[in-house]
């Protein structure tokens, strides 16, 4: 068991308010990811859950019990740190067993746990080594082993993969997800990497300036962002934001001196609300080379002057300009080569999934 309820949590360091009233409901067995740029308060929030940081006001409940004033030891939580924080003078085996030893678990039980955990993580052959004799990936495993051994109610992961190289990071990511599937223990996971957030999470809490901007499934966060910040933060390459004049129920796009009209869902309500300009949010994958089988009122064909292309392998990102804003289109590799050669191409713009934001506040207009 391990549900967490966070109510109106605030934290200040002197005059600086780092957490401004956080409310979060984390279900038992859920994989929740706290994501946001550095300084958004995600690590502070995690440390508050762990009990490593005192909170200024508000409550933290684990399984319905108020743990706000309990020490880390009494909360039954295990944490994997960014630097792994393995005890440098202890062997791997003792690193894993130290928490049990401190809790006065009987020796036989400790030995069994160490054996089980090391088998699960495939680190049996490393048990007698010191952390300094391990590679980054192995240290990562040992750090997870130390957390697993305690069999806590909640796991906290503080950017656990950020010190690994790109390939290993992807491997460990999958492994963590499998582990979660297998154990079913609640995980709260902090990262600034939106790809990690998308791939791992049951639900994502996007944070900025000490507030949760949006809490939702990866699908909701990606396709239905609650404001411009969330839309911008999640997705790589990022969403295009184009300031457009509203003409009746359509948006105006200007490319190379020519004007084009875009039909958008909810265009009628824009017209009724009397908005003159909006920020059009459209993901790069909705601006593509023409695809003959896709058609409809929301599919448009607009020319684009291609300044630069960036081949990514599976697709190519093309950079151009509409309405004086740089935009990115996601082309097939072949269309990418074509665009590179011609410099000017026609792209297909599918507005079925666009989101519209207020030009000043960045709030969603069409939600």
């Amino acid at each position, binding site marked *: 068991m391990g549900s967490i309820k966070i109510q109106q949590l605030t934290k200040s360091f002197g005059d600086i308010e780092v957490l401004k009233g956080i409310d979060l409901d984390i279900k038992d067995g859920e994989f929740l990811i706290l994501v946001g740029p550095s300084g958004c308060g995600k690590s502070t929030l995690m440390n508050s859950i*762990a009990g*490593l940081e005192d909170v200024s006001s508000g409550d933290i409940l684990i399984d319905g019990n108020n743990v706000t004033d309990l020490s880390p030891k009494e909360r039954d939580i*295990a*944490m994997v740190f960014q*630097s792994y*924080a393995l*005890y440098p*003078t202890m062997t791997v085996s003792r690193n894993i067993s*130290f*928490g049990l030893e401190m809790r006065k678990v009987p020796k036989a039980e400790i030995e069994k746990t160490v054996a089980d955990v090391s088998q699960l993580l495939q680190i049996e052959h490393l048990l007698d080594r010191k952390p300094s004799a391990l590679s980054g990936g192995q240290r990562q495993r040992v750090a997870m082993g130390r957390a697993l051994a305690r069999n806590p109610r909640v796991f906290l992961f503080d950017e656990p993969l950020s010190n690994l190289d790109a390939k290993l990071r992807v491997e460990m990511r999958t492994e963590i997800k499998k582990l979660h599937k297998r154990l079913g223990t609640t995980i709260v996971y902090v990262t600034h990497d939106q790809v990690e957030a998308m791939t791992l999470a049951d639900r994502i809490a996007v944070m900025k300036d000490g507030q949760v901007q949006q809490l939702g499934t990866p699908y909701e966060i990606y396709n239905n962002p609650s404001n411009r910040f969330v839309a911008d933060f999640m997705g790589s390459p990022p969403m295009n934001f184009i300031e457009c004049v509203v003409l009746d129920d359509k948006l105006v796009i200007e490319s190379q001196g020519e004007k084009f009209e875009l039909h958008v869902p909810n265009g009628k309500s824009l017209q009724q609300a009397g908005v003159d300009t909006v920020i059009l949010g459209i993901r790069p994958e909705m601006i593509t080379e023409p695809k003959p089988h896709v058609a409809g009122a929301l599919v448009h064909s607009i020319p684009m002057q291609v300044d630069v292309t960036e081949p990514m392998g599976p697709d190519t990102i093309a950079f151009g300009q509409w309405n004086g804003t740089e935009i990115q289109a996601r082309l097939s590799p072949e269309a990418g080569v074509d665009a590179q050669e011609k410099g000017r191409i026609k792209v297909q713009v599918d507005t079925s999934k666009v989101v519209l934001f207020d030009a000043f506040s960045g709030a969603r207009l069409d939600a």
Partner: protein
Amino acid sequence: MSASTTSHRLYKALFITLLLGFALVYLGPLYVMLTTSFKGIEEIRNGNILALPDTLDTSAWSKAWTSACTGGDCYGLAPYFWNSIRIVLPAVFISTVIGALNGYVLSQWRFKGSNFIFGALLFGCFIPFQVILLPMAMLLAWLGLANTVSGLVLVHVIYGVAFTTLFFRNYYVGIPSELVRAARLDGAGFFATFRHVFLPLSTPIIVVSIIWQFTQIWNDFLFGVVYSGPGTQPITVALNNLVNTTMGGKEYNVDMAAAVIAALPTLVVYLVAGKYFVRGLTAGAVKG
């Protein structure tokens, strides 16, 4: 190319000559001390100060150790040597332990005002001995520790804690605070974390602290002469008395042997643990 290597070699030769010169300046007196201590008094009076002894005469050594006069008593340096040991061992141990705990708190368990306390402790490194002579004498008298070994231990511990705290604090500040957090989540308290996580990491800095404190306290003269009684004088004070007590002619060979005996323990500590000393002093600066 060849011109630059020639000048490079020239510099190197100059450099080495200079170093050898300095070494000679330091080692010269030691040479004279050692050779003189093995000479008979006649040979010293008639011979060259730099000449090697004709025969190895160890009588000056045994006299210095067992029967030379220090003031009124003529028991040699031996009793005072043991006095010094009785002062140094507890003082070094206690000041190192307190310094380690202080450093641990000031680096890893910071609290409101901990920086101020650290600053105040550092200030202790810069207070000259002479300034506190009188108030400390009053304190020792008030505690009933005047003229006792315990009193001297107390004085040296108080003076040493400023330095040992500085050593340990600067060493522990380089240890990531995430270790403490991990230990707290693992259920280890303040002392368990210190014992299981920090202490095993501390060998180099413990050695630094021991060498430093041992040298300081063993070589101390001022506190030794002021706060000791007739039976509790440390070896430095006895050496002074021995050299200044003349019965008949001056026995340079006994004086020299006594000086070497007094200096020997610090030398031994250096030779045994010296390699850790430099390593420990730089450990905080260059993190491996």
